[in-house]
């Protein structure tokens, strides 16, 4: 089976099957990362823009690097830019009432998302990458372009803050 790095080499030559394989391997991880980072908003746009950048820069990809690290670095930069944009104007569409069980589940999820959103951005990013995407400290340091010690410290403080927030809200 071809490695991700080999597939990027083929992608730079315009190989559609290489793109299909890379999409298949990373679609779940990348889309859920973007979903969690943005709270589910504009995921499609960010997902597409991430892959557009991967295709455009595939020729310059350093094959010594891990593809997943590069992919998440691109996605993270796009998600950060997205967060800096001003919020869109409120829609006038009427919200649809979900069923009670769906409502309870949605509220629970909303609580978890809200707690994560209350973390400082730097801490939230390491918590997401480490615990939802099982990334090593080394990979996170490369993605976030900071020393490994900083990642370690952010991780601990992020978890401690999350525990405090959960206790505070009785979650």
């Amino acid at each position: 089976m071809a490695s991700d790095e080999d597939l990027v080499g083929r992608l730079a030559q315009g190989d559609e099957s290489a793109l299909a394989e890379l999409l298949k391997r990373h679609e779940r991880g990348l889309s859920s990362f973007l979903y969690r980072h943005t709270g589910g908003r504009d995921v499609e746009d960010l997902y597409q823009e991430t892959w557009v950048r991967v295709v455009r820069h595939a020729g310059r990809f350093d094959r010594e690097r891990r593809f997943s690290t590069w992919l998440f670095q691109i996605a993270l930069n796009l998600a950060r830019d997205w967060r800096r944009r001003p919020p869109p104007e409120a829609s006038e569409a009427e919200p649809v009432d979900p069923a009670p069980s769906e409502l309870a589940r949605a509220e629970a999820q909303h609580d978890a998302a809200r707690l994560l959103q209350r973390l400082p951005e730097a801490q939230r990013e390491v918590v997401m990458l480490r615990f939802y995407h099982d990334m090593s400290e080394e990979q996170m340091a490369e993605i976030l372009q900071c020393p490994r010690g900083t990642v370690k410290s952010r991780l601990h403080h992020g978890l401690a803050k999350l525990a405090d927030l959960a206790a505070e809200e009785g979650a």
Partner: protein
Amino acid sequence: MSESELQRALARRLGEHAEECGECRAAPLPLGELSRVLARQVVVVDAVGLSRRVAAALRPELARLASVWFWRRFGRGVLAALLPLPAIVALDAWLLSFVHEWAAAWLPEALVTYLVVSYGALLVLLFAATYAAIPLALAREAWGRSVARLEATA
């Protein structure tokens, strides 16, 4: 991944972190509570649908990249083949004149001319075949790639 599977995975990762983290060892965190909180955020996103739309949107860009790659390779192949050509032509011309001179001492002029011209024509034919093979080889490779692509999308 279901919520319970996610919670188990999160508990394992949190446990690994707690073992490695000096600060966590000094002041333990409520890992069970943290895994429960983090597991609540289940992602609802149609990743396969997103990928399908991305693949469709990127098709023109990939076609452009494939074209650029083909012509770049073609140019490099032709250049690599043309670089030694002057030296080869000079060597063959010298060889033909030497053979002509040497054979003229022994054989009739008409026969020598016939032999040298035949040999020269054969060389020209071999050159033409060699240089024609460059675009043919590239076209064959491009054909193989498009067949593989069709098989992958079928």
